[in-house]
């Protein structure tokens, strides 16, 4: 059995999205800035794509900027808000400890420039309380940036409430909605969002293309200088095929969010219940406020990379927040932010499902994870120490 359970990393492109791209490579390949016919046709396609994205997000077309992906959108949103704030002497930025690195590393850069970065505690649930945002906002707050849904543990934040607080206090609110789009309902007007980042490849669109939504009163700072594309705010010939593929995927992914949730949530919950039966394991993040397809567990006594390699042998593609898979000495900053000790965070597993997953595949996932965890525990001196009481357990049985 082959199961791709790493949809939070990237997704398989939909046939519809691929088909939507091809004419813009084969026939209408003109540069949208060119004045002849195939250039102007590409320009029309681009502008119609902008309108379609705006319709999905519930904003104006001119508030949509096409980017190379989520990271670029995050960078530009945060830098722009920081520059706007700095002009008025506002150099305080509020975020959370478990944002994506595209946000955290941009904030680190601003910190070096003299900005004060306040990272809110996300608790063991992986959830922000809107009250925390309210209490943290000051006269000199330039920006609040909080992700819509967490990429590792899948918790969904109370964005509408946070947005309302920011709106009332007149503070710019940005959300990295890369993991949320196409999985939960997102509406920038309803959710009081000023800036939002998207990435097409997370919802069955192509890689290398994304969106920055910025309200029309927000003056963006260029990250990429050059030509006057994207209202002069993002230079570079537009990725027309990518944008057309993204729009097709975006419309498909958002047209029946309720149906998607209804189908996927019971399967996700079955997976959670099955994995929860493995002794000394625990779900990461709140049980209820989570994406319909994302499940993240920690297993005591084992290390994530060996777990992934053995699951790969069983045809399962998944990911982990262990240090060995992150390429650094520390395990995932997200797991540490929700209070998991290092030794437990090393033994994490993220399974992120797509909506074509079947019940039979869920059963196979549960059985396979159980087998591999048991096998690795049997050769783990750490596990032996836990069983013999030499070291204390972190989780209950």
């Amino acid at each position: 059995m082959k199961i791709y359970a790493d949809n939070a990393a990237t997704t398989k492109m939909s046939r519809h999205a691929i088909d939507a791209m091809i004419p813009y490579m084969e026939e209408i390949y003109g540069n949208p800035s060119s004045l002849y016919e195939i250039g102007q046709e590409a320009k029309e396609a681009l502008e119609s794509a902008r309108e379609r994205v705006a319709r999905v997000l519930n904003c104006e077309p001119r508030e949509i900027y096409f980017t190379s992906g989520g990271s670029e959108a995050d960078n530009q949103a945060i830098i722009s808000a920081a520059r706007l704030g700095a002009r008025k002497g506002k150099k305080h930025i509020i975020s959370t400890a478990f944002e994506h690195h595209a946000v955290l590393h941009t904030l680190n850069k601003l910190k070096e420039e003299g900005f004060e970065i306040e990272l809110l505690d996300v608790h063991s649930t992986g959830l922000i309380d809107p009250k925390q945002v309210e209490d943290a906002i000051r006269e000199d707050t330039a920006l609040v940036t909080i992700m819509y849904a967490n990429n590792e543990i899948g918790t969904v934040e109370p964005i509408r409430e946070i947005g309302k607080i920011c709106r009332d206090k007149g503070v710019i609110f940005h959300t990295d909605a890369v993991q949320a789009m196409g999985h939960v309902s997102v509406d920038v007007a309803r959710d009081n969002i000023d800036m939002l980042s998207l990435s097409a490849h997370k919802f069955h669109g192509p890689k290398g293309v994304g969106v920055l939504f910025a309200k029309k009163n927000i003056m963006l700072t260029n990250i990429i200088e050059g030509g006057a594309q994207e209202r002069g705010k993002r230079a570079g010939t537009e990725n027309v095929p990518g944008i057309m593929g993204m729009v097709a995927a975006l419309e498909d992914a958002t047209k029946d969010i309720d149906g998607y949730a209804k189908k996927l949530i019971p399967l996700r919950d079955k997976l959670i219940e099955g994995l929860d039966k493995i002794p000394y394991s625990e779900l990461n993040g709140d049980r209820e406020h989570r994406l319909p397809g994302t499940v993240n567990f920690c297993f005591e006594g084992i290390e994530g990379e060996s777990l992934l390699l053995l699951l790969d042998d069983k045809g399962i593609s998944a990911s982990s927040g262990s240090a060995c898979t992150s390429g650094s000495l520390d395990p995932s900053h997200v797991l540490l932010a929700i209070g998991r000790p290092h030794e437990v965070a090393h033994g994490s597993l993220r399974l992120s499902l797509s909506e074509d997953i079947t019940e039979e595949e869920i059963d196979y996932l549960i059985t396979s994870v159980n087998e591999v965890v048991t096998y690795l525990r049997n050769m783990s001196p750490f596990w032996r120490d836990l069983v013999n009481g030499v070291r204390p357990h972190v989780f209950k049985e």
Partner: protein
Amino acid sequence: MALYSDKVMDHFRNPRNVGVLEDANGIGEVGNPVCGDIMKMYLKINDDEIIEDVKFETFGCGSAIASSSMATELIKGKSVEEALSLTNKAVAEALDGLPAHKMHCSVLAEEAIKSAIDDYNKRKNGEK
């Protein structure tokens, strides 16, 4: 998976000498759970100072498990002196190489053997 050589994957998937040696007379453990890897080596050394049997237990990534497995193969049947001269480089080379950021796994294997022999020497000298 292209991350590791075929040899690493072979030793990871089919680890040699894995388990506990009940009659071990030298036991060494290195690493810690916070860093994400622990290796435990069990040696049975005879009166001629030959490593008659060896087993290991490892908590860690694929290359940590493979390094332990390979290290046990390299010292089984060898003298204590030979085992002490085993370097992490030799372990990595026997595995057809390890990625740069995984070299510490081979270091752990070398240290685990040294630690087990140290334990054996202490027991022999009545320090334990």
